[in-house]
Every structure is written in C-alpha cells, then in structure tokens.
C-alpha cells in the first residue's frame, strides 16, 4: 500500500508537469516541469522524503530498462543514421573530451582559488 501511495504522489506530480507543458508555450518536456515541482515540494516540506522515497528510488533504479524501446527504435531509423554515421560518431567522441575538460578544469580552478584564499 505504501508503495502504491508513493507511486500515486509521483504520478500526481507528473500530471502537474503535463499540465504545465500543455499551458506554457516553451519547448520543455513535461518530465522537467515535474522534476522541478518535485524538488520544490521536497525543499519546502510540502512533500516529505518518506512520502516518495522508496518508490522513487525503485523507479530510478530500473530506469535504464525504460530506454530499451527507444534504443531498439534505432532499427527503424537506421536509414536516417547511416548517411551521417561518421560525423555523428566523431561528434559523440570529441564532445566527451571537451565537456569533461571544461567541467573539470573550471570547477577545479574555483576549488583551488577558494583553498588559496583560506590559506
């Protein structure tokens, strides 16, 4: 029963996200509105962690399984991917390097600046 109640709350927040998506003319997925609502509700105490925790953790744990159908969809979009396979692969690999370098070095610089000030 506890799990069902938690799932109901999660669905209600998702519904709220869906309503926002329908009302607001922004290219933002319903799930993001829902996520922001969930975060605000937890932060303000409207929802307690206990009211969503177990079902939420379970859903996150099994989340990779939910991507299988979309991934398998590749078999029907193979014709679109085939002609751009090389550029797509190049972009995929290079971006990993640039993003990790930017995130790591910027945050490391800030952390070390902070340490120097403390010292």
């Amino acid at each position: 029963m506890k799990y069902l109640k938690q799932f109901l709350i999660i669905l209600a927040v998702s519904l709220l996200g869906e309503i926002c998506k329908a009302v607001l003319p922004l290219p933002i997925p319903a799930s993001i509105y829902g996520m922001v609502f969930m975060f605000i509700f937890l932060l303000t105490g409207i929802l307690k962690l206990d009211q969503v925790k177990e079902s939420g953790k379970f859903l996150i744990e099994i989340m990779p399984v939910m991507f299988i159908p979309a991934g398998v969809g590749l078999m029907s979009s193979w014709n679109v991917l085939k002609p751009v396979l090389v550029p797509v692969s190049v972009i995929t690999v290079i971006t990993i390097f640039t993003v990790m370098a930017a995130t790591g070095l910027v945050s490391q610089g800030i952390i070390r600046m902070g340490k120097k000030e403390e010292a």
Partner: protein
Amino acid sequence: MTEFMATSAYAGVTISLVSYGLGAWLKKKFGFGFFNPLLISIIFTIIFLCTCGINYETYNEGAKYLSWLLTPSTVCLAIPLYEEFELLKKNAKAVILGITAGVLTSLATVFVLAKLMGLSHENYVTLLPKSITTAIGMGVSEELGGYVTITVAVIVITGVIGNILGEFICKIFRIHEPISKGLALGTAAHAIGTAKAMEIGEIEGAMSSLSIAVAGILTVVFATVFAGLI
C-alpha cells in the same frame, strides 16, 4: 511459431528484459565498461526482432509500457538531487559554474562540429542533448524536432565511452580534485559515467549524481538557444 512470434506483444519485451539481465550479469562478472546492460539489451533485442521478423510497431505494443514509466521516473530524479542538496550548497560556486561550463561546451562543440561537417538541422538538434541523461535528452530532442531514437543511441554510447575513458581523460587534463572528477563524469556521461564515479569514490559519486539533474536542466534551457543556430 514464426507467425505467432511476429504478432506477440510480450515476446520482444521479454527478450529485452532477459538480455538486460544478461548484460548486468556480464558486467558484474567481467567489470568491463562495454558490457553495459542497456547497450547489450538494445543490440540483442534488435538482433532478435530482425531474426524473427517482428517489426518495431509490434514490439512497441508491449514495450511502450516501459517507456510510459519514463516521465514519473524522471520526476524522481529530484529525490537524489534533494538528498545531495547540502553538498551542492557547500560547493555551490564550483558546482554551478563547472556544470554550466560543461553544458555550454557540449552544445558549442556539437554546434561547431555539426557546422563544419554540414549536418542538417534535424541531425544537429538530435545531437544537442547528447551529454545529458536519456530521460531528459529524449524530451529535448523531441521538443526540438530531432530523431529521438538516434538521440538515445548517441546518449547511451556517450555514457559507455565516458565510463571507459573517464579516468584516462581526467588524467590527461590533470583533473585531480575529487569534486571536479565527479562533476566532469556526471556532466559528460550522465548516469553511466556516474557509475564509474561511484567506483572511484564517495565524493566523486555524489557530485556526479547531482550533475545529472543540474546538467539536464541547464541543457533544456540552453539547447533551445543553440537549436536556432543551424
């Protein structure tokens, strides 16, 4: 038998879950990043469907219920973010600026390379959300008019490569701070990179998992701007 398989709503989904389990087992046994359960499952399921002559629409009759859970699950990503919120507040500047730099770099790299290689608008927006978690990336790609299935494949492959090369990349760019390693892995390679961050250490893991939600949200905001460029 073949005729039955070609119309079964459960056969494909069963194979998807079995091969996911197989991938998880291989991963545990050999501990090698390529054995990503999701990647293994996608490959096995495609081979299975092609061999049995099941078309995607039939498969999706059953599999769509898996996708249906995606929105509520994405909403739940707020839970670990809330749990790590103290850690975020304590390192707010490094976390926010580090992830923002990463997100902008991701979008800019995709933009520059796509422009250089002459990709169409559809292919370009398909790749824009490639660094963020699949749940949010799919939504972004769909909203911007990209090919969602390709976005998913690219996101998963990004995660797997990030998981395998992450430590090496940290080494060549001399990223030594545990916080920075975590942020870099989470921002560049989402949940699959976070799995690696958790192996490296507790701080790395926590930082990486909070990057998933933050980078996702920032990408939603900035991708809209970048989408108009090509």
